[in-house]
């Protein structure tokens, strides 16, 4: 009951943001992101679902996007970005920075 209430409250709060959002998915496998380059429209809000298909946790991190988000092994997490100015916004999986990296291109 409590969770239902919380969910209703959250959806009420989130509804305006979600209404304008385009959804994207990033998948982590073998500590790599697919796709490694994601094109999004500048000036709009987007939600990205980060799906972690590895057994180990990963931290989706981007200073350019001001996001730090832990995604547990075989789990997923939602990150919200935007509105972005046109440009490139790199991101990494902080726990495997040498392989887990990608860029969001706003245009």
């Amino acid at each position, binding site marked *: 009951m409590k969770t239902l209430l919380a969910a209703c409250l959250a959806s009420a709060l*989130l509804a305006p943001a979600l209404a304008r959002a385009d959804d994207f998915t990033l998948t982590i496998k073998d500590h790599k992101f697919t796709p490694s380059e994601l094109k999004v429209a500048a000036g709009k809000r987007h939600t990205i679902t980060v799906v972690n298909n590895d057994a180990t946790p990963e931290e989706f991190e981007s*200073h350019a996007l001001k996001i730090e988000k832990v995604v547990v092994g075989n789990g997923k997490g939602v990150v919200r970005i935007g509105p972005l100015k046109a440009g490139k916004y790199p991101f990494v999986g902080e726990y495997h920075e040498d392989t887990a990296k990608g860029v969001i291109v706003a245009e």
Partner: protein
Amino acid sequence: MLGALIIVFREMLEAGLIVGIVLAATQGVAGRGRWIAIGIGGGLAGAAIVAAFAGAISEAFQGSGQELFNACVLAIAVVMLMWHNAWMARHGREIAAEMRSIGVAVSEGARPLTALAVVVGLAVLREGSEVVLFLYGIVASGTSMGSVFLGGVLGIACGAAFSALTYYGLLAIPQRYIFAVTSWLIALLAAGMAAQAVQFLNNGGLLTAFDNTMWDTSWLLSEGSILGRLMHTLIGYTERPTGMQLIVYVCTLVAMYLLMRIARAPERPRAATV
């Protein structure tokens, strides 16, 4: 091994800095070691619990649970820091005078050490849960990862050493100024945390007002660099602050200043000066 050391050390920097500042700010207070140890111990236990339930926390509130949790943790820390500074504004001078005249720790009990113990605990909890998850990932991913695990442990040791460095560095400040300096450090720390909390609410989709980026100084100092991370913790440096972050940062500083002014006001009866 080096990679793991660097990752863990980076996560430890923030907590290490906060512990060092808190140690310096509580200089000359009997029983502070115990309180800070309780804070660190509680933080570590909390970090393990948070790491264990990371999946559940993340999925709560339509996927905004993690952001909401981080924002709450930061907000509580900000309140505790304000409480500490207000208390210090009222009693700091007496303590400094006592310490000068007797030269030993005298003030006991009365100080809100609980507030700072909570701040330390929350800092360790936030950063520590990421370290726990990272080390868990290493352990879970295979057997030949001993050296990486060792790197992680060494990273924790480096973080502790950094904490000691912060503490002794601050102790080099003459006793007369140390409370003033630590009060300002704590004020900036709190403002930075408040701005960070706002960003978490933004990331969670819960507060999107004024979220346009005001400027970009990533060319000057990257937030990913060690110095950038230190400045992020110390004064809340953000390479691309949003309007709301700036507003909250300034408001927190002003609120802190006013609170300290009010607390400092002498308790003499007010003359009717109308």
